[in-house]
């Protein structure tokens, strides 16, 4: 049966209904032979292939123009003078993750040496330091209130540490274990309040947790391999988040239902970083395939690729400037490339780190961005 999409859907729906009721009887459209379990499996496989093709066709129909063509009339960007304005030194090993506080001056960073440090980026002073019971603290996040930080890594957990005003107090004593995964924690983020945390893990899942009770509120299954990164939608756009993984897929999730609502698979290798465009209508990704890409959620497709033949090392971390016009990418070749999001061209390349750039975030008010590196330092650029 070739038929229209509707016909295929109907026939297929019929076979699902029948197999789930264990009645292997014949559907009107099929030939007069009994449907065996393995035949149903191969039918399903054929249907899934048809559906995938149909999905590609539907997406392609709306691909009437490229983003950079639409942006041809926009003024090009001038020369950028961005320099390292602060260098934060203190970690004893590779910096793996960092996050800004909403106050636009404090930063939390975590390292392979097991330390989590809270910095005042204006003065470069260290305000707090916590030693985790594990090495490779791959994830850290600042609470929206600024009163706590969350972190985790090879311990498979995400723990929350309330920040005390008393410098002498041992932060580790007040630690609260919130999330438990069955493999390493790759990323974590508070939702709009200090009460809930979203995590992603090497176990292939993401999960939403209640901080106070440690209860699992929702889990998100769909990645076929380690999930490496996540980002929450800007609050105005509602309850969704995106994740990227070693299965080369970027998924969009509904936080309430746990359902994956959109999925994109155009990268050729692990997706190390995903970040929403400021309006929430699109997101960027950085991958080991040495490209960054832009996906529009309403067009449901990739709309731009940021790449150059000379860039052959993976992009580990990406973030947008406030207006979404610039995309900053930290790469494994120690550089930071700055892309014109609309035109698809590179506008600047920043040198300074002496090893891989592993983390990169723009400050909450967009006045600066911070990069963390395997060279043990963090740099604030403006």
């Amino acid at each position, binding site marked *: 049966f070739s038929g229209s999409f509707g016909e295929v*859907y109907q026939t*297929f729906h019929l076979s*699902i209904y029948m197999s*789930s009721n264990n009645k292997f009887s014949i559907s009107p459209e099929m030939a007069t032979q009994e449907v065996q*379990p393995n035949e*149903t*499996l191969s039918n*399903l*496989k054929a*249907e*899934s292939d048809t*559906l995938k093709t*149909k*999905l590609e066709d*539907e*997406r392609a129909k*709306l691909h*009437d123009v*490229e*983003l950079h063509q*639409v*942006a041809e009339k*926009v003024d090009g*960007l001038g020369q950028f003078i*961005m320099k390292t*304005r602060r*260098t934060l030194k203190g970690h004893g090993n590779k910096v793996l993750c960092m996050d800004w506080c909403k106050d636009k*001056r404090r930063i939390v960073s975590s390292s392979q040496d097991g330390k989590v440090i809270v910095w005042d*980026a*204006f*003065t470069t*002073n260290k305000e707090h330091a916590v030693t985790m019971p594990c090495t490779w603290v791959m994830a850290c996040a600042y609470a929206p209130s600024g009163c706590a930080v969350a972190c985790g890594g090879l311990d498979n957990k995400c723990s929350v540490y309330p920040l005390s005003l008393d410098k002498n107090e041992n932060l580790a004593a007040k630690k609260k274990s919130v999330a438990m995964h069955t493999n390493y924690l790759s990323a974590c983020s508070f939702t709009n309040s200090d009460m809930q945390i979203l995590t992603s893990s090497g176990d292939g899942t993401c999960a939403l947790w209640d901080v106070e009770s440690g209860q699992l509120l929702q889990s998100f299954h769909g990645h076929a391999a380690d999930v490496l990164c996540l980002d929450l939608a800007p609050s105005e756009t509602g309850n969704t988040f995106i994740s990227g993984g070693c299965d080369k897929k970027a998924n969009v999730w509904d936080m309430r239902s746990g*359902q*994956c*609502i*959109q*999925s994109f698979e155009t990268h050729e290798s692990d997706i190390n970083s995903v970040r929403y*465009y*400021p*309006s929430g*209508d699109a997101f960027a990704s950085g991958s080991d395939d040495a490209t960054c890409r832009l996906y*529009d959620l*309403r*067009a*449901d*497709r990739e*709309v731009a690729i940021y790449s150059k033949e000379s860039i052959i090392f993976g992009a580990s971390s990406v973030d947008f*400037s*406030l*207006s*979404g*016009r*610039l995309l900053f990418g930290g790469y494994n070749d120690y550089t930071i490339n700055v892309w014109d*999001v*609309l035109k698809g061209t590179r506008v600047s390349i920043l040198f300074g780190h002496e090893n891989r750039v592993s983390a990169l975030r723009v400050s909450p*008010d*967009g*006045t*600066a961005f911070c990069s963390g590196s395997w060279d043990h330092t963090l740099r604030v650029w*403006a």
Partner: protein
Amino acid sequence: MTSNSNLSNMRRLVDQLKLEASVERIKVSQAAAELQQYCLQNAAKDALLVGVPTGSNPFREPRSCNLFQGQQNIRIMQRKTYIGTQKND
């Protein structure tokens, strides 16, 4: 049994694909125009894009605190010494 779990996995995959296929989509031209519009509307507020008046980017201005890098350090030290000299007059 493996065949049953394969079956249910396949079923789940097909259900997922059907869900994704049913998503409402708009044309790339419209999506691109709206991305562009957002960029242009917010460009003036984007400090990393257009820069801000001197003095209002806290990272571009040195602060009168400890731990600074390079030339700024020397300039502040010189200024402090000068002020110190004046006070002694």
